[in-house]
């Protein structure tokens, strides 16, 4: 039972990034510099190759995984996802016991991404998935929904938010050079955030089942 969530989470996150690396690179070739999939895969491969991470309580595991991404990714997604995970990990000691702790982690993580990217929601970035997901978690918790309902809401919120990035104009990162030509494409960072959110939901669902 010890740190079971960490193990599920690492497996699910590594699996989804490996499975979708080519797709992420394809999305990034359309509006960025075409390295998002390969960079994310390098980072998550490095996490998979650090078996110690799976043995840690979630907070420590996220911090270690975040630092691994920072050191291994080699693109802008390294410091962005690295800051997200490190801030989430610092927000909780050990394993989160309740939904409001997960909420606190997400709040800290989103703040770290905003600071690192000097960005906010509405600029066609990963924040356009993370921020609505954070709001959905907050409202699901305040309505005291069951874990299963909360997970379903989070998945739906992430999917809808990802689709909305298609209509947005990029004002941050390489895609901003394209101006209006960035409209009509899904943001690759938003897609990787949506994939990782689904992986996190899979992991929590796995723990709930076990």
């Amino acid at each position, binding site marked *: 039972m010890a740190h079971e969530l960490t193990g599920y989470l690492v497996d699910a996150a590594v699996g989804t990034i490996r499975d979708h690396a080519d797709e992420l690179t394809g999305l990034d070739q359309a509006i960025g510099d075409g390295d998002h999939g390969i960079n994310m895969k390098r980072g998550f491969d490095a996490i998979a190759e650090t078996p110690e991470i799976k043995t840690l309580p979630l907070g420590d595991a996220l911090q270690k995984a975040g630092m691994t991404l920072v050191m291994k990714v080699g*693109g802008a997604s390294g410091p962005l996802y690295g800051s997200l995970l490190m801030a989430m990990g610092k927000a909780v000691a050990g394993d989160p016991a309740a939904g409001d702790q997960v909420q606190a982690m997400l709040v800290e993580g989103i703040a770290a991404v905003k600071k690192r990217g000097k960005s906010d929601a509405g600029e066609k970035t990963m924040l356009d998935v993370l921020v609505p997901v954070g709001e959905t978690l907050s409202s699901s918790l305040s309505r005291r929904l069951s874990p299963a309902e909360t997970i379903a809401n989070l998945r739906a919120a992430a999917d809808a938010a990802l689709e909305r990035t298609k209509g947005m104009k990029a004002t941050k990162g390489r895609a901003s050079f394209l101006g209006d030509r960035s409209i009509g494409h899904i943001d690759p960072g938003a897609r990787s955030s949506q994939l990782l959110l689904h992986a996190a939901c899979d992991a929590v669902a796995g723990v709930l089942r076990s």
Partner: protein
Amino acid sequence: MTDRVGIVVVSHSHEVAKGTIDMVRQMVGNEIPLAYSGGNPAGGLGTDVASILAAIEKAWSPKGVAILVDLGGAESNSEMAIELLPEDRREKVVVCNAPIVEGAVMAATEAAGGGSLQAVRATAEELSPR
């Protein structure tokens, strides 16, 4: 030499980073600490936080270090590297908002003249449109 601000160039390309420092060295000689970082941890195009940290260390000066970067990831990875420095050094390293080649040359010229970190950064940033 360590009474001059150090200059670090961070590019997605090893060749661009090295070439920029070669140009700077030809113009200002070895009067200031110079270092560069280019390429991702796998040797391809990109940037590498560990390598940036090593470059800052190599160009370290008590007067500080000014970093010139090319594109997005080079900036965010440089900022990440600064945050990973010992606390007493973080304040003495800045990322300049300037074109990488021209900025490095102008910053190095100011640094060679004995300018402060703020003066070096301001000289490089004069090149950027406001």
